């Protein structure tokens, strides 16, 4: 028998090479591959077999490397994506097809998807979509909505995939410029940069929603634990032990002091050698907990006898928001029909497949941090305050981000590794486990909404009163943004003359709620869009026509009194759905008649909903700056600091810049983001990068072009091209050749530079919420076709049709990718996702959609150009999930007659509602 205590020598074939490693007993193959054999293309998402990101082939069979003990691989053949891509023609075809479909967004699930797909294509050379769905059912993706991946695998099997025409000009559906590294296993994410020998940090977290705590003798603990270099607590924070994102609401400690305010809050950290920390038992940390009664949920927080959680916030109210115009109450009294309801939504977890990870070290007296983030410059500002350091002594060099969706705007793991690197003067890395990621990072705000809407007999809206309360959890995070944004958006994209919308955000002892795709608007849209269906029903009007009748048009004021002269495309979005709507409703009707006749429990339904979303910060400055330079060899370098978290900023911003400059996008070299070399592209949030950073890129491209043209006095319509050491300017009359080698390079090696900023024109809102909150809105309408099983309460989505007014699609392929991914997240929110602290802290109890849950999507791109957007373009990232959940709820109502006012509408919830309504 083979037996080993300390180290276990193993030898196997890895990517066609013989390798040897010594693993600790019980070590996972994923750890050995990543940490001992440098195969960091093997991604770890959950360490529990729930996500499939770590899939490798062992003797040709796909398995989760996180569930295999390393000795089990001994003598076997192991293939990872980085190997397969070099020698397996199927992997190479998959890489091309994935690129052609933009099937890799953030790219963190891509190795697991592609490795599994290789195994499938070896068995089934030309699979159908259904076969691909089942084969990939064990790999989760949070970005793409799976359909592009399924198409890519089918096309790889056929050996033919679409290739976009064009050279990458604005409007061309080109491949992602940063896609190649994602489909070959070369992309480096948050946990992929740390060097061997780095110390490893682990966090001690509160097991209670609210608890006092006392540490034991930390010095003795430190001295008695071999391999442990440091213990960190709040006492080790040299600057302010606080962070946050909204001025006036900076309230979250890096390490809790005296009392932990939510389950999972960090109270201390241990830093030690990697080998020791690999099997370190955090439960032996000397801490004594004193659990205290926790404030759980909105009602408890607002109760008169509730504990007051933060000083200066009476009744646990963190902040509130208000927008009103006309006279909502008297309009509702005059309305011919009204509808009203109370709605509740759950905590929703972002569930990106990449848990937080970071790597920090000190270099030449400066602190360097590598981590996935959505906001490098904001992170640096916060870190400077925490560390008591000047900002220029901190460099944030973000890695690729394995999904963000809002939660990676906030600091999480970065201050911990920063403090540890400074204290130990050694490189320090940390990686959150899936449970830590879920417990400690922000969530979507649970909401309780009361809404009443009215309409006249002719169908025009007549009065709307909205009252929403949002559970912001233990700390503010982006709660104030949600409170401000929701009243502006709660009307939906409609003309509502008499409107009153109030919002309140309350503190509780739940996990902090923050930014999550839509900032509260998906919650308010559920209430508004489902009650609009009820109004239409009461008026015996078609639900789509009711919306078209009331849709906002250019020239009509929004509820904030803002009037757009152009670029209000909601009516066009809704009208684009008309053919599918009529066909779908008729087909559902026919199906249901047949089902009733045959005593089948299945019923089909079709629902519609609309949405809008203002791009950028609400009435606050949010500038972006883009810089570009021309090297003497003719290379154009774009300093792109806007974080690409999978949505495609690296491609879209480069396309805009290239169009403005007048050179093909493929020759442009992109650098960054890195706070040392890229200017501030602002945060990747609020659907602002295409609009705001895109405008900065356009201005920069135009400025660089002007500088080039002015050197030879060429006309604005000249054609540019580059050659070795030259820029060729072809004017109508003559062709100029600028010899760049003769120009003096600056200290960065550029012979010409341009740097421009853009800040959207907004105006503050007055006490009634009147003003100009956003320079532009994007618009959306979704149609969901579903099937309900009346006996089991299960809901299966069969098809989505989505219309989006994006002003101008910079890259239609990436627009579709955003639409698909947003719909998948909206579907999850509607039907299955609920984060319950202590109960759904993993990816088998917290369910996100799989390949089998996400049906095909037909996307209509509407282009009603915006006055301010680059080439008329609008943001899109958040619009894509706002209408999804209410469209599904409306479809359930169409199929079964029941109105569900809480999400998620799990089978249990749906069946209870069916029974209450007398079904069965």
């Amino acid at each position, binding site marked *: *028998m*083979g*037996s*080993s*205590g300390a180290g*276990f020598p193993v030898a196997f074939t890895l990517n066609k090479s013989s390798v040897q490693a010594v693993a*600790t*007993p*019980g*070590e996972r193959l994923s750890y050995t591959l990543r940490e001992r054999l440098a195969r960091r293309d093997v991604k770890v998402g959950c*360490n*529990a*077999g*729930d996500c499939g990101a770590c*899939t490798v082939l062992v003797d040709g*069979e*796909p*398995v*989760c490397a*996180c*569930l*295999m*003990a390393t*000795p*089990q691989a001994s003598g076997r053949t192991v293939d990872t994506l980085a190997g397969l891509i070099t020698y397996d023609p199927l992997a190479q075809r998959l890489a091309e097809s994935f690129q052609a479909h933009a099937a890799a967004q953030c790219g963190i699930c891509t190795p697991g998807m592609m490795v599994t797909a290789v*195994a499938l294509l070896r068995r089934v050379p030309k699979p159908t979509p259904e076969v691909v769905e*089942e*084969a990939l*059912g*064990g*790999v*989760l993706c949070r970005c793409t909505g799976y359909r592009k991946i399924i198409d890519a695998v089918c096309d790889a099997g056929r050996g033919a995939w679409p290739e976009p025409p064009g050279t990458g000009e604005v409007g061309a559906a080109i491949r992602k410029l940063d896609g190649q590294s994602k489909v070959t296993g070369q992309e480096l994410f948050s946990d992929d940069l740390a060097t061997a020998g780095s110390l490893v940090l682990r966090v001690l977290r509160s097991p209670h929603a609210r608890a006092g705590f006392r540490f034991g003798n930390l010095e003795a603990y430190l001295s008695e634990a071999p391999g442990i270099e440091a213990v960190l607590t709040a006492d080790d924070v040299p600057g302010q032990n606080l962070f946050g994102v909204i001025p006036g609401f900076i309230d979250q400690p890096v390490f809790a002091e005296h009392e932990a305010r939510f389950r999972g809050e960090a109270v201390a950290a241990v830093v030690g050698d990697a080998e020791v920390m690999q*099997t*370190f*038992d*955090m*439960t032996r940390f000397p801490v004594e907990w004193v659990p205290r009664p926790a404030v759980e949920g909105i009602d408890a927080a607002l109760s008169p006898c509730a504990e007051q959680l933060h000083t200066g916030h009476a009744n646990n109210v963190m902040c509130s928001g208000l927008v009103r115009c006309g006279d909502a109450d008297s309009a509702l009294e005059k309305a011919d029909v009204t509808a009203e309801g109370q709605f509740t939504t759950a905590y929703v977890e972002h569930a990106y497949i990449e848990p937080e990870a970071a790597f920090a070290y000190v270099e030449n007296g400066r602190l360097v941090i590598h981590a996935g983030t959505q906001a490098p410059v904001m992170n640096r500002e916060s870190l400077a305050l925490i560390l008591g350091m000047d900002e220029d002594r901190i460099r944030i060099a973000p890695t690729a981000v394995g999904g963000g969706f809002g939660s990676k705007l906030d600091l999480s793991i970065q201050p911990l590794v920063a403090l540890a690197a400074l204290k130990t003067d050694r490189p320090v890395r940390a990686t959150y*486990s899936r*449970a*830590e990621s879920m417990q400690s990072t922000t969530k979507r705000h649970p909401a309780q909404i009361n809404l009443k809407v009215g309409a006249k007999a002719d169908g025009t809206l007549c009065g709307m009163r909205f009252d929403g309360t949002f559970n912001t959890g233990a700390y503010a995070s982006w709660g104030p943004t949600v409170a401000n944004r929701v009243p502006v958006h709660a009307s939906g994209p409609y003309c509502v003359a008499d409107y009153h919308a109030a919002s309140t955000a309350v503190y509780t002892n739940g996990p902090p709620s923050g930014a999550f795709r839509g900032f509260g608007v998906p919650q308010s849209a559920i209430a508004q869009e489902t009650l609009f269906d009820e109004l239409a029903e009461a008026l015996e009007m078609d639900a789509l026509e009711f919306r078209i009748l009331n849709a906002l048009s250019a020239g009509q004021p929004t509820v904030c009194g803002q009037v757009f002269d152009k670029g209000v495309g909601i009516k066009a979005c809704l009208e684009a759905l008309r053919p599918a709507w009529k066909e779908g409703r008729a087909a559902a009707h026919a199906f249901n008649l047949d089902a009733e006749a045959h005593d089948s429990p299945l019923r089909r339904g079709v629902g519609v909903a609309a949405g809008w979303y203002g791009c950028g910060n609400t009435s606050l400055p949010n500038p972006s700056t883009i810089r570009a330079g021309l090297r003497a060899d003719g290379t154009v370098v774009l300093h792109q600091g806007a974080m690409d978290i999978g949505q495609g900023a690296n491609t879209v911003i480069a396309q805009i810049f290239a169009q403005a400059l007048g050179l093909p996008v493929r020759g442009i070299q992109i650098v960054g983001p890195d706070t040392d070399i890229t200017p501030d592209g602002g945060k990747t949030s609020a659907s602002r990068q295409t609009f705001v950073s895109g405008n900065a890129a356009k201005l920069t491209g135009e400025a660089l072009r002007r500088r080039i043209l002015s050197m030879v006095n060429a006309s604005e319509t000249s054609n540019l091209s580059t050659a070795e050491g030259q820029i060729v300017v072809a004017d109508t009359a003559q062709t100029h050749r600028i010899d760049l080698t003769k120009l003096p390079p600056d200290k960065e090696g550029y012979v010409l530079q341009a740097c421009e900023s853009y800040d959207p024109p907004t105006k503050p809102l007055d006490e009634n919420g009147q003003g100009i909150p956003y320079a532009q809105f994007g618009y959306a309408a979704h149609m969901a076709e579903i099937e309900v099983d009346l*006996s*089991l*309460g299960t809901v299966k989505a069969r098809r989505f049709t989505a219309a989006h007014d994006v002003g101008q699609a910079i890259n239609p392929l990436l627009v579709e990718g955003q639409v698909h991914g947003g719909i998948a997240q909206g579907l999850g929110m509607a*039907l*299955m996702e609920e984060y*319950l602290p202590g*109960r*759904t802290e993993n990816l088998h*109890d917290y*369910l996100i*959609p*799989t*390949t*089998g*849950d996400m049906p095909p999507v037909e996307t209509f791109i509407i282009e009603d150009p915006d006055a301010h957007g680059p080439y008329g373009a609008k943001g899109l990232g958040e619009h894509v999930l706002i209408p999804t959940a209410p469209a599904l709820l409306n479809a359930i109502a169409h199929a079964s007659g029941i109105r569900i006012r809480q999400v998620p509408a*799990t*089978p*249990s919830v749906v*069946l*209870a509602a069916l029974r209450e309504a007398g079904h069965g």
Partner: protein
Amino acid sequence: MGYHIATSLNDALDVLAQTRARIIAGGTDVYPSMGDGPPPAELLDITRLDALRGIDQENGAWRIGAATRWSDIVKADFPSAFNGLKAAARQVGGWQIQNAGTVAGNICNASPAADGVPPLLTLDAEVEVMSTSGTRRIALSEFISGARQTDLRPGEMVTALYIPILPETIQGRFLKLGTRKYLVISIAMVAALIDLDENQRIRFARVAVGACSAVAQRLPGLEAALIGTSPKTVAEDSSLWRSHLAPLSPITDARGSETYRTEAAATLCRRAVLACMEREDG
């Protein structure tokens, strides 16, 4: 800490006799149960024992080796009574999990929602348990003694499952209900075995329900009541189901309420039995 790779069955049993090693095969339960903590102090790896993997017939019974993987079940050439077991095998996690997770691991983990247990209960599976002091066989229904509890004693390991050979005409089905399609833990699940007489009435019935009590269980009352019934009765007589589900004791949790589970179990029982009677392949 130690990691032992068993090179023979006796070797494995010796390690178990001498240590309190936790057995690891597919790792699909061992690793998730670690959470963020260190691995078990002692692990016994049984994946190198060829004798523990494989499916064959001996002495009038099917023998399924303990370390047989779910993907082996999917590929096996079984008669139609095993259709439910094969359907369950295709729903144990995803493909990756089916390539690693073992049949014995599923029963030893003893989750109330173990996918393999209801079909194995309908097949009257017996568990072979060995230790250095001998071999014993025990019915699966007795082997799993509670939620996360088995009859396994210190020093023992499961080496095989034995399933009596059944008439070729028996049809098996398995229905799993979850909140999403793949990679889902059941809210409720049902396995059924049905055989019909020449008048298309039920002459043989076994029904087991999982995730609706601490241990999945057969419903003998329902099975008896089904004998002699016609497809029409099965389809239309709703009282048949509700009255015989009393042995179940479903809980309310994040996946579903007690009421929901009870109702869903009745629906699934009816559908599983009807599906068997339709005699479709697979």
